[in-house]
């Protein structure tokens, strides 16, 4: 036994612990109502997200369908254009025009002449001495111009 142990027991003194140590830690405990709100909010968020994603996907699909419809329209327009080009060329066929003219009673001219103006006229039907130059300015012959 030690000497200390043999000493007279001292009177215990209650010492107040510092409040920070003694005070129990306070944890906020959610009430049942708040939990419900959280659950609902989460559910709403999830549902909104799902609807959002589904909505976006539907919009994308819709846009895709519209794009395809437009592609079809473009293809149809191109097809019509190609058919019209061929039809116009067939109408312009010199053989057809000659046959029609003869049918109408016209006779081939033996003395056809062009009147050449001293100055070219740019308006419709204007004629220049160089036929290639006329073609380059002819809106009805777009293949040789930039505005095709």
């Amino acid at each position, binding site marked *: 036994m030690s000497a200390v142990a043999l000493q007279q027991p001292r009177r215990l003194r209650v010492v107040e612990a510092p409040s920070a140590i003694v005070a129990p830690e306070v944890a906020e405990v959610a009430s049942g109502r708040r939990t419900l709100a959280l659950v609902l909010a989460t559910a709403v968020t999830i549902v909104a997200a799902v609807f959002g994603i589904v909505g976006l996907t539907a919009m994308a699909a819709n846009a895709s369908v519209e794009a395809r419809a437009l592609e079809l329209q473009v293809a149809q327009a191109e097809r019509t254009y190609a058919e019209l080009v061929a039809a116009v060329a067939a109408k312009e066929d010199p053989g057809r025009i*000659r046959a029609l003219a003869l049918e109408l009673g016209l006779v081939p001219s033996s003395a056809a002449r062009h009147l050449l103006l001293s100055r070219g006229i740019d308006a419709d039907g204007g004629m220049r001495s160089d036929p290639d130059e006329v073609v380059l300015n002819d809106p009805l012959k777009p293949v040789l111009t930039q505005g095709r």
Partner: protein
Amino acid sequence: MGRWRLDDSARLSRRRIRATFAVFLLVFGLAVAQLVNIQVLSAEEYAERGVRQRARTIELPASRGRIYDREGDVLATSVLSATLYADPRSFVPGVRPDGQDVPAAADAHRVARTIAPMLDLDVTWVEDRLRRDAHFVYLARQIDLRLGEEIMALRLPGIGMLTEPSRVYPSGGLAAQVIGFTGIDGDALQGLEARHDDLLRGTPGTLHFERALGGLSIASGLREVAPAIPGRDLVLTIDRDIQFAAERVAAEMIERHDADGATIVVLEVGSGEILGMASAPTFDPSVLRAEEQSFWRNRAVTDLFEPGSIQKTLSIAAALESGAITPETVFEVPDRATIAGNTFSDVSKHGIEQWTAGDILARSSNVGTILIAQRTGADALREQLITFGYGSPTGLRFPGEVGGHVPSPQQWWATTLPTVAIGYGTSSTLLQIASAYAGIANRGVMVDPVLVRGTVGNDGLLEPATAPTARRVISTTTAAQVMTMLEAAVDGEGASGTRARIAGYRVGGKSGTAIKALEGGGGYSDRYVSSFVGVAPLDDPRIVVAVMIDGPRGDYYGGLVAAPAFAEVMHASLLARRIVPDSAGRELGELVEQTRRESAERAERALAESTRALEESTEPAGPAD
């Protein structure tokens, strides 16, 4: 005892729990392992497999480029057409894999009777195809798309439709031998379609997309498009109106002279651009017939012939260029000459005449030309013909183009020089001859003929073709001297080409009449080739027209048969190119008055003819026998 049992039971439960847990762990582990395998280790492979199931790739055909004439008029284009097919299995009863009988979807005879008239086909033929032992038969290819859609609207079982591009030639057979054609599968087979197929055909594109069960595409699925690159358009040097005039005249010549064929070339002087190149008989590339196969070739570049008298111009040019003669050199020309035992004679008899080279050319004297050639010498004549392009293709690189023949120096015998001088013993194409004349008209500078002005891409801009090669073949002086002689051959005294004259224009040219060699060689036939080559207007030569009529019956002299054809085509070409007449300086009032006078005369003639025709048609018919 109870305590013992409780311990035992607890131990057993724990063991079971552990075993169950172990099994669960094992299964879960396997599932996780498989998941890792699918999602991580073999993810790519599975992804690819999935895409393979859903994805589909379609080739997007490139639209074939158009072919335009020099003024932008369409000569060839492509449109979508319908191809109708049938699945003959639909017209016979079948058996399902489970053994159940399946009735035929439709009656083959009824279907054939419905669609055959619409397709203008024989009912029996259609029915025969519908009854074939096959999964797929064509019923009609490349028909009008609307007709195809009309037939599909009938919803006939076993009948299907595909769309495919088809080539159309809106002007029918116009320039058919030049443009060529494509096959039903779009393969270029002839002419410029084949020559420039690499430019015209374009590059096909691809469309990748995902499809669901049943073949429907998934709207939000993968969709990748690599667009097709359309072919470039080809702009030719051909003028549609000139081409038409040349073809019309060529066809008329065949009919009028009961000829085997006719070829006409119209060439622009200076640029080498071919404005027209007609071969008759011709064909319609939209309706190819095997029996017309011989009409497919472009005679102007594929057919060789002995030029005859139209080559005399080149012989005289060679003499002038070599310095052997001058335009003033006078020759004593008899009407016949015997060389190495062979007699060469002129067409018309005459005494010994004092003629210059111009007189000789105007009268187309064989003997005179031979005298000139003897002064020129064989080497100089041969070299000059080769310089004019004889013996090698023109540089046009047209499919099937040939270069002709000039005898090599080793092949020159005593009679070769006189023979070649008057246009026999050599062969060339009509284009070569026209090109040589264009060289003379272009002050001695020959330009390789061209058929393509350029190409047009998606930007719509004309990209000019490479400029043709130009080379001097004779001096400017020689060219001018020859041009004067050519005018005398049309307008001069005793000229052989008087029928080539065109009112208002100064014209120069030379007629030719050559006996046709027998096919396979070994002598000459009793048929002729009539030709005429000329230039106008002579003040500023712009156009060369060469006409060759193969085997005319009756009249066969070039000056009688080919010269009028030349005049007609040249006149049409001058008008189409808006080339001012040499007599254009007249007052407008005078021109109007002349036109009015001519129109009135023509109207009176037409009225008289109509009245006569009407009177004849209204005469009472005679009594019946």
